[in-house]
């Protein structure tokens, strides 16, 4: 039994390594694609296009405007003359935010009449709008309290507020102090790569043998189905585990810390890969041609991907989809990879995810093994 299995394993490994296109694809997903997407794709908001309508045109109003021009969150695209012109800019997408400083801004401020500054935000992208609104409020609050503290000579003392804020928030961001999206993105790209390769590779390699007809030759040999099953999946598993290492280098290059333990990460990655491979084999057993297999895996991967929390947070989904997403192995793996890297979580925190992966993996592998045998 031993030699038979070993020779089969050797054959599969050789076949795997001969497939240059697949190897290149795996390496591409783990390195170049990860780097490219991490650099490009971000929800971090900077350089918001701001148009300023300064109806006051005084030195005081320019002080306020300067607070916006120096902030790197904003990029001033111009100074429309009137509100109507500014609105046209918003409509054509030339500006995303319009700041309108009213006439008599300086006068009202000096008389402590609390002038109103208007901001119009393009809400097309509600996400950017919410963040932009926060930035704007922060800048104006800071200006406002700086003004009251400085208390220019012309402001009567009795008009000064007693303190700037009665309750002061002291906000700290945990696990990702600089709120950089890149650390999230790079980890989620690594998880995606593992998912795609884990599903597509075994599906393609098994279906190809079906299409070419060599699977008949394998069936007439004394090899048992179980041996064939393991020999088909083991090289993929090993290759995917090896591919994690260049991925780790990419992660390091983006200054993402590994706060948890590497062996734990690798162990849980293996668990995750087993469920991905199970899905791949399942697809291969129910399809006949490579085209069907590829189409099925692509359209199967899309929901798994979008229900995983890699692109959009799971908490914002409707309850039903949140429940459905529990069946996606990628969702649990995302929590694991973020937990191990950013939070330094150990098995004490991650055992529910590990258990879920184990359950999903067992179901998929059993289904795959059954479908595999029937053929």
């Amino acid at each position, binding site marked *: 039994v031993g030699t038979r299995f070993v020779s089969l394993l050797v054959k599969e490994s050789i076949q795997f390594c001969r497939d240059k296109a697949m190897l290149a694809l795996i390496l591409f997903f783990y390195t170049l694609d990860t780097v490219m997407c991490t650099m*490009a794709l*971000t*929800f*971090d*908001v900077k*350089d918001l296009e701001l148009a300023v309508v300064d109806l006051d045109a005084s030195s005081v109003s320019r002080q306020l405007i300067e607070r916006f021009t120096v902030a790197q969150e904003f990029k001033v695209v111009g100074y429309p003359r009137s509100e109507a012109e500014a609105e046209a800019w918003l*409509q054509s*997408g030339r500006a995303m935010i319009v700041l309108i400083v009213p006439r008599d801004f300086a006068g009202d*401020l000096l008389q402590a009449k*609390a*002038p*109103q*500054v*208007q*901001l119009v*935000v*393009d*809400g*097309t992208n*509600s996400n950017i*709008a*919410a*963040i932009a*609104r*926060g930035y*704007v409020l922060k800048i104006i609050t800071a200006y406002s*309290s700086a*003004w*009251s503290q400085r208390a220019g000579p012309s402001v009567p003392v009795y008009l000064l*507020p*007693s303190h700037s804020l*009665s*309750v*002061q*928030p*002291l*906000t*700290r*961001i*945990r*696990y*990702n*102090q600089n*709120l950089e999206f890149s650390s999230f993105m790079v980890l989620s790209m690594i998880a995606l790569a593992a998912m795609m390769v884990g599903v597509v590779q075994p599906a393609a390699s098994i279906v190809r043998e079906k299409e070419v007809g060599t699977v008949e030759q394998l069936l007439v040999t004394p090899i048992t189905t179980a041996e064939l099953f393991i020999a088909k999946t083991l090289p993929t598993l090993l290759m995917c585990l090896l591919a994690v290492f260049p991925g780790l280098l990419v992660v390091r290059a983006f200054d993402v810390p590994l706060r948890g333990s590497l062996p734990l990460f690798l162990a849980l990655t293996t668990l995750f890969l087993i469920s991905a491979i199970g899905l791949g084999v399942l697809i291969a057993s129910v399809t006949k041609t*490579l*085209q069907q297999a*590829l189409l099925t895996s*692509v359209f199967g991967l*899309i929901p798994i991907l*979008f*229900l995983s929390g890699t*692109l*959009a*947070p799971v*908490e914002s*989904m409707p309850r039903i989809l949140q429940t459905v997403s529990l069946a996606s192995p990628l969702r649990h793996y995302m929590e694991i990879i*973020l937990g191990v890297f*950013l939070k330094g*979580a150990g098995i004490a*925190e991650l055992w529910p995810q590990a258990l879920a992966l184990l359950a999903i993996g067992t179901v998929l592998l059993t289904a795959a093994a059954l479908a595999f045998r029937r053929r």
Partner: protein
Amino acid sequence: MKPQRIIAVMVKELRELARDPVTIWASLLMPLTLLMLFGYAISLDVKNISMGVWDLDRTPRSRALVDAFLQSGYFNLHGVYRQAAEMDAALQRGEIKLAMVIPARFHAALERHDTATVQLLVDGTFSNTAQIVANYADAIVAQFHVPDARPVTAVRPEIRVWYNAQMRSVNYIVPGLFAVILLAFPPLLTTLGIVREKESGSIQQIFASPLTGPEFLLGKLLPYGLIAFLQILLVSVFGIAWFDVPMRGSWWLLLGAGLIYVLCTVGIGLLVSTLARKQVVAMLLALVVTLMPSFLYSGFLFPIFTMPVHSQWYASAFPGRYYVDIARAVVMKGAELGDIWRNMVWLLLYTAVVFALATWRFRKKVA
């Protein structure tokens, strides 16, 4: 170029499609499925954030602050903790996204008109949500009403959000999806339709016939363009009606621009089919040049203006971003031709180039 020859190819192609009802149903149902899935699954709205409180003060004032959080509608109280370690563990496990520590003497400090400091800990793993959570929390604390303190406002900001006043993310996800879905399906269908003939060898018969390259491509284009246009009609009407997206612009403009866009995406399919001999290769190629960039580099989810410059160029190399802009402007802003003509010109140019390339590549094959 003879019209009757083009029509002959079209008729042949339509007959072939009619005999394959599975493909037709799949090509109409798949976009709808994707629309439903993404319309619900991709939401960047931040709401129902689970928070934890460690209240060292336990006075009516401190409870009022917690109430202010709960009444804002953004936060759910997940746990009240007695120890720092408990709270940390909850944050660590990801059970709560925000932890608030109210110091002892919070009430006393406010009574004395001192400034009291409240500590807010935000889980930063998903930086986008974290940013919004931090903004909301800061605003709630800053606006926390203390009865006899005098208001502090040297300048009053009045912020209005236009085009999407309730800031529903589905309003911009759905118009963006039109572009994504139509970049994913029509090219794939077209590519497979042509490469199938190459693989089975029936393309040799076409080469042997008096049919010219452009005639063949046009004959192929029209049926697949028709299906693609049905797709855009279905996805647009259904998407806007089902998800209750306010339609502010003109349907004619949206569908007119959509027609140019689908011709462009079908053209990409034609181009890819001239590059590949095998269906598998054609499919992978179509995925790499259409599906991936349409999700990631179209501005559908990730804004293009925050990308580094070279990635912005990369994004400009795919038609998705132009139609994403057009669809959002027409649907949400009620934009007219005057507002979006730039994107329309890019789209037209893009389509022309794709067709020129496809014809050129195809002719070389015939020779």
